[in-house]
């Protein structure tokens, strides 16, 4: 579990994160959502230690990551896998070498075992016939898969994913979302996904944190979001008629599944 306590971060005069406290639940896909400029990426970079916080704490299973020096941070960092927005693959290395790199650096496995582990990860992300290709030679979706494979190669406890669907077509986005969700469940890791893609929110988010202008505006589950009365959240998530329809459909599905009463909601109108 990752806990954020009163995180504040400013760049010059501009305050980006304003007293953010939240919990990333263990073994679940935690989403940080919000409009562009709401502080999602800065929050994620503060969580992994790429940007130092001005005040507040980031706790990994109760250990204060922000109070550690670089040496103390190393074991936690090695338990973190991260997929960057642009995939951040090493462009001088082939796909295989990219995934092999963390193993070469930190693992004591034999070369044969490392190769086997690389192939396992490539199979897990369903990437075929790309081992010897360079990042410049593969598509955006394939780069994301390689990024995920590299992030999971050391069996991380925490997986951070920054904008997994940026620059991808809707079909590939769904595949990547499903892959992240499946990996979270299969490996029982704590996943934090930074997104403003509503398909991801509706389909793969277990626990959702909504950021608005540097503050945590709302926090809850995928189901809670349907019933939320928060105007800013509703304006953000259900801005399009398409998602309003999905909201109504979800309500009806839940009504049908008799989940409705337990939530204490009112019967949906059939307009």
């Amino acid at each position, binding site marked *: 579990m990752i806990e954020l306590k009163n995180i504040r971060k400013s760049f010059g005069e501009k305050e980006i994160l304003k007293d953010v406290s939240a919990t990333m639940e263990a073994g679940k896909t935690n989403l940080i959502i919000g409009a562009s400029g709401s502080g999602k990426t800065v929050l994620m*970079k503060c969580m*992994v*230690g*790429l940007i130092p916080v001005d005040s507040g704490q980031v706790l990994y299973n109760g250990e204060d990551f922000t109070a550690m020096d*670089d*040496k103390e*941070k*190393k*074991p936690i*960092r*090695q338990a*973190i*896998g*991260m997929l*960057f*927005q*642009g995939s*951040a*693959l*090493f*462009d001088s290395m082939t796909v295989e070498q990219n995934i092999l790199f*963390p193993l*070469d*650096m*930190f693992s004591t496995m034999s070369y044969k075992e490392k190769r086997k582990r690389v192939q396992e990860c490539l199979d897990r992300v369903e990437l075929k016939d790309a081992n010897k290709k360079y990042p410049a030679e593969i598509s955006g979706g394939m780069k994301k898969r390689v990024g995920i494979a590299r992030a999971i190669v*050391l069996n991380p406890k925490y997986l*951070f994913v920054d904008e997994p669907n940026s620059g991808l077509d809707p079909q590939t986005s769904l595949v990547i979302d499903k892959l992240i969700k499946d990996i979270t469940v299969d490996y029982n890791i704590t996943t934090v996904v930074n997104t403003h893609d509503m398909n991801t929110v509706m389909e793969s988010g277990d626990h959702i944190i909504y950021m608005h202008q540097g503050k945590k505006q709302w926090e809850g589950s995928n189901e809670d979001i349907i019933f939320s009365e928060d105007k800013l959240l509703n304006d953000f998530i259900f801005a399009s008629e398409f998602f309003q329809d999905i909201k109504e459909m979800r309500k009806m599905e839940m009504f049908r599944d008799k989940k409705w009463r337990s939530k204490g909601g009112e019967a949906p109108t059939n307009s």
Partner: protein
Amino acid sequence: MEFRFFYHFGRFLLMLTGMFSRPENFRMYWKEFMKQCVDIGIGSLGIVAVISTFLGAVTTVQTAYQLTSSLIPKSTIAMVVRDTMIIELAPTLICIVLGGVVGSKIASELGNMRISEQIDAQEIMGINTKAYLIGPKILAALLTIPALVVIAAFLGIFGGLEAGKLSGILSHEQFMEGLRGQFDGYNVFFALSKSYTYAFIISSVPAYYGYHVQGGALEIGKASTTAVVVSCVMILFADYALAAILL
């Protein structure tokens, strides 16, 4: 460009001190060091060979042009070429060229890695990127650049020898006679002192600018240019300082 000397100097020192940590995996650091030795050393060998050979040739021809008195023996030309190549042209001029070739490569490579979040990706893995990405570059430069300077001095003298013969200024025998006369070994020590100093400048200054790039492709270009300009100015400043101290 805003000139903030103490800000940059302080950050430069922090970068250097941040490099000193126990390697996560010595074999990987060694591999990176060898890769940089090939990139910096072997990669620059061609341009160094061409420039130094012609520098020696031109020095021979121009020295002969200026020595008009028949009282001065022709072998003096070889002495002038030898000492000029060893003391100044091989270390300083070759390192200024390397400042452009190697410096822009280091700055743009690290800048591109910074912009495309490759450095962040390594940080997340728990790698000390200053030690892994900058350390091997500086060490490789300290190993290969003095070697290139020595090669440049030899090739410059060889160029002078051949140019003297081809242009009919002096024979090989006359050149070899001058080459052996009044040789001072301290000049070699001075040249190597210079080349180690320049090697450090050529590798660390561009690494600093590349590592701290912020923005996009335009900023990588700017950082690369700034790195080369600052390196060249620092080489010239160090050239004067070392001459004043050591000669």
